[in-house]
């Protein structure tokens, strides 16, 4: 629907229909996600600023080096967080499939893919909860940083404060996303969308879920990789 002639442009803005060819709710979801992007952007950029303004910072490969059921003192950096990242990516794929099934009015496929997405979300939250618990037991929390900097100097609580705050906000978004998806599932199973004749609500929930995945891409890169 790219506008190439002036006739099409006049048509879109002539009134009586959405000039962006999307329903109101979808547009509002996009604008909400843009505002949320600035919120997370502000958090991450402030993290970057503080990190850049200090001489030393803990080495993430020394801090995040464990995984569930591993031996004490194991050194396996990036392993667990890779699993978490792939869980979220796959849950995003199942969400795309759910949206596509909704466009084809295929209730069964929508339900199945929503269930898979919900399972993926719960799996991610469980992993994040494990990571938090593990770090807590090593002495980390808001206001408590047991790790030293990569160069051996004393670190500040900035490291743990930022980690728990930002992953906490993200985890909260995942949680709300899972709850929204559960509500979507219930609405699908009770034929709400069949009665409406469209599954546009699933598309909006899909946008939110992909945003959650997108934020994780940035959070994971900033805290674990660079």
């Amino acid at each position: 629907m790219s506008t190439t002639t002036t006739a099409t442009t006049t048509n879109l803005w002539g009134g009586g229909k959405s000039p962006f060819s999307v329903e109101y709710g979808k547009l509002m979801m996009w604008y909400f996600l843009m505002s949320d992007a600035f919120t997370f952007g502000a958090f991450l950029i402030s993290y970057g600023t503080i990190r850049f303004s200090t001489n030393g910072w803990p080495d993430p490969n020394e801090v995040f080096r464990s995984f569930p059921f591993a031996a004490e003192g194991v050194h396996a950096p990036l392993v667990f967080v890779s699993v978490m990242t792939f869980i979220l990516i796959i849950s995003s794929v199942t969400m795309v499939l759910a949206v596509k099934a909704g466009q084809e009015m295929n209730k069964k496929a929508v339900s199945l893919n929503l269930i898979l997405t919900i399972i993926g979300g719960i799996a991610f939250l469980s992993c994040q909860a494990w990571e938090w618990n593990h770090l807590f037991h090593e002495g980390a929390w808001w206001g408590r940083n047991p790790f030293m900097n990569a160069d051996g100097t004393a670190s500040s609580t900035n490291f743990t404060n930022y980690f728990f705050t930002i992953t906490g906000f993200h985890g909260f978004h995942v949680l709300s996303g899972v709850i929204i998806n559960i509500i979507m599932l219930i609405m699908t199973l009770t034929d709400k969308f069949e009665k409406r004749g469209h599954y546009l609500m699933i598309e909006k929930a899909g946008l939110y879920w992909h945003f959650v995945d997108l934020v994780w891409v940035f959070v994971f890169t900033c805290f674990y990789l660079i």
Partner: protein
Amino acid sequence: MEHTAAHEAHSGGGNKEIIKVTIILSVLTIVELILGFWMMGITSPSFRLAIKGTIIILMMAKAFYIVAYFMHLKHEVKNLIMTICVPLMLFVWFITAFLWDGNSFRNLRNTFDPHFKEQSTIIVKEKAEGKEHPAEKK
């Protein structure tokens, strides 16, 4: 994947596109992880910076694919794409300005605040770490 039919405004691509984008995202993630692992063995600061820069570029590519294909933005009306992408351009200034400022802050403190500079040269002994573990049950 531009379709010409009007009602295709809501659908974007078929299963093929979804599989293609999934594979691209997985490959980008794996490359990022490989770079991350590789970087662990590199000590040269400029080389590390180059690898970090590459990781950031890969991250931006992932963001593009998620927003364009999974969120269907690529298939939407051009004006809608612009109402999202143009304000997000603010991020270019946002990131540049704040990282530049942070760096400048560090340099100024190192130059004019002797306590700050000194603090960052004191090596913490291993014994001191043991004191800071309040709840170590595992």
